[in-house]
């Protein structure tokens, strides 16, 4: 069983908590997904409606581990400060580190990401860096102390699946011992299955579940898809061929002439 900073998880499906039609819908989706990790964030508290307090009360009732993110941070300073605040707020050393470099694609600023990862790991954080499939960046992140990587499938919220299969396969092969979670861009359960079949250790899904017509049903679909993909990887998929190979034995075949 793969461990994420020493934490072994039965479920390979991590779930985001944003963009659900209702808090009750989120709660049912978390249960249907059988998720053991949910991502959370932190935003300005108005003080009037106490929405943040209500949300946190609900999440604690889920009985799952939380993975706070630094979503929306565009600089190292912002990300590091947000991580400090998240550690206190959520009482965890885990941080999904996002340093966004480009507005349209929300592509990670990988230079800032490595710098922030180095700072935070030195301070005892257990960093889940949201990165691209770039091998050199991955190497720098591992050197910085990251013991988990979170490569993107496609731009956040795009639902386009795994954009660069070759790059992701290469990343998986080069860092065989580093737990990896495919994060962002997964739109369908089949995308999640594909990631798991390729040997990734988990997937993180948010929009694909939250924005489905029936988020609870979709959460269940993703749970089954992730499980199927993980089983398939363990089973060892066959190698594809270009030409047909008869599956029915030809020896003993009758001749009718």
């Amino acid at each position, binding site marked *: 069983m793969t461990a994420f900073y020493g934490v072994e998880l039965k479920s390979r499906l991590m779930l985001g*908590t944003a963009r659900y039609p209702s808090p009750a819908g989120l709660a049912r989706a978390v249960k249907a997904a059988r998720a053991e990790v949910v991502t959370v964030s932190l935003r300005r*508290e108005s003080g009037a409606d106490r929405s*943040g307090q209500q949300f*946190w009360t609900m999440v604690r009732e889920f009985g799952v581990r939380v993975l706070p993110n630094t979503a929306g941070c565009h600089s190292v300073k912002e990300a590091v400060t947000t991580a400090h605040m998240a550690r206190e*707020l959520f009482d965890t050393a885990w941080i999904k580190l996002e340093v966004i470099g480009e507005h349209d694609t929300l592509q990670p600023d990988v230079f800032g990401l490595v710098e922030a990862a180095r700072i935070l790991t030195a301070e005892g954080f257990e960093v889940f860096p949201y990165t691209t499939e770039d091998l050199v960046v991955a190497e720098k992140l591992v050197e910085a102390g990251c013991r988990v990587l979170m490569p993107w499938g496609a731009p956040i919220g795009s639902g386009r699946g795994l954009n660069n299969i070759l790059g992701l396969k290469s990343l998986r092969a080069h860092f065989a011992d580093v737990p990896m979670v495919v994060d962002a861009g997964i739109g369908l359960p089949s995308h999640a299955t594909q990631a798991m079949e390729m040997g990734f250790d988990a997937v993180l899904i948010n929009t694909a579940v939250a924005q489905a017509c029936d988020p609870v049903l979709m959460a269940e679909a993703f749970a089954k898809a992730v499980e199927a993909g993980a089983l398939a990887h363990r089973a060892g998929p066959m190698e594809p061929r270009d030409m047909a190979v008869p599956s029915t034995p030809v020896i003993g075949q009758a001749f009718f002439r």
Partner: protein
Amino acid sequence: MRLVVNGNSREVSTEVRTLASALNELGFSNMIVATAVNGVFVPAQERERQTLADGDQLEVLAPMQGG
């Protein structure tokens, strides 16, 4: 004293000297929040010692939905 709290200008009484007292007066007491003053994180145990000055910028963050 005038403070900028989560981007909004807020007036607090002259008795407010520390971050802890400001949070209390602004209605954040007993809430689970994390704080920063002028862009620097202030841990909860430091709020009593963190003094404030006119124009200081406070960030008061709470748990929120995230992906």
